[in-house]
């Protein structure tokens, strides 16, 4: 009788653990799906290129095409640099 009860308890515990594992796995997968669906909004940051030494002193980071053009122009004439940068960064 006692052995039979022990068997029943063990079986119930296994069910509960199995259910919890299934539910947790599902929640994790749904969370991943939400994250992946957020990545569907493609922004211009995908258009940046790796910066070389010419554009950034340490050569690290990314830069967009218009920034490259501005840097080229500054290399030819950098008068009013502060004013120009202020205008470019103005929203």
């Amino acid at each position: 009788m006692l052995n039979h009860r022990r068997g029943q308890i063990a079986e119930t515990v296994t069910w509960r653990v199995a259910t919890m594992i299934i539910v947790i796995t599902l929640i994790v997968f749904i969370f991943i799906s939400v994250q992946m669906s957020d990545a569907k909004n493609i922004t211009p940051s995908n258009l940046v290129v790796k910066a070389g030494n010419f554009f950034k002193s340490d050569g690290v980071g990314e830069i967009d095409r218009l920034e490259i053009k501005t840097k080229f122009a500054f290399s030819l004439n950098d008068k009013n640099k502060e004013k120009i940068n202020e205008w470019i960064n103005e929203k």
Partner: protein
Amino acid sequence: MNSKSGEKLISVYWFTILILVAGGIVAMVYVFYGVQYDVREIEGSIMINQISDCISRKGVLNEDIFEKSYQDNFLKNCHLNFNVEDENNWKENLQYYFEIKIFEINDLVNPKVDFNHGSLNLVSSCEIASEDYEKLAKCVEGKFYSIGKNNEQYLIKILSIIRKSEKNVKS
């Protein structure tokens, strides 16, 4: 508990798990495929990049831009076309717009060059651009600096607007 009622209970349990797993899969598919790819912002940026290449190369302004005939034929000169699929009445209503303003460094209020191409109706979308109004056209603005042949300083502002909401926003 006798063995028959125990078996019944197990089959109810497995049935519940089956529904749970199936529901989870449906939820995952709905969440992922329920959102459309919105490429309008990147499309606007590509248009700005293409236009900027026609205006300035290696930091030097293409001075043809000051000529009216060059501005009028800008689409052809810059290898741009506004052709779209013949869907959702797009052929009748242009889905693109861009505006170019070139300022001299001494006057940042009145542009020396100011022209546009495309559907002017889309401009109003930029004023109420917000995440709540995703169905409106997307506006992207780009600014950069360039110099003229005689070392004059110019500031260039390009505004590009893309509509195409039917294919980029879930209805």
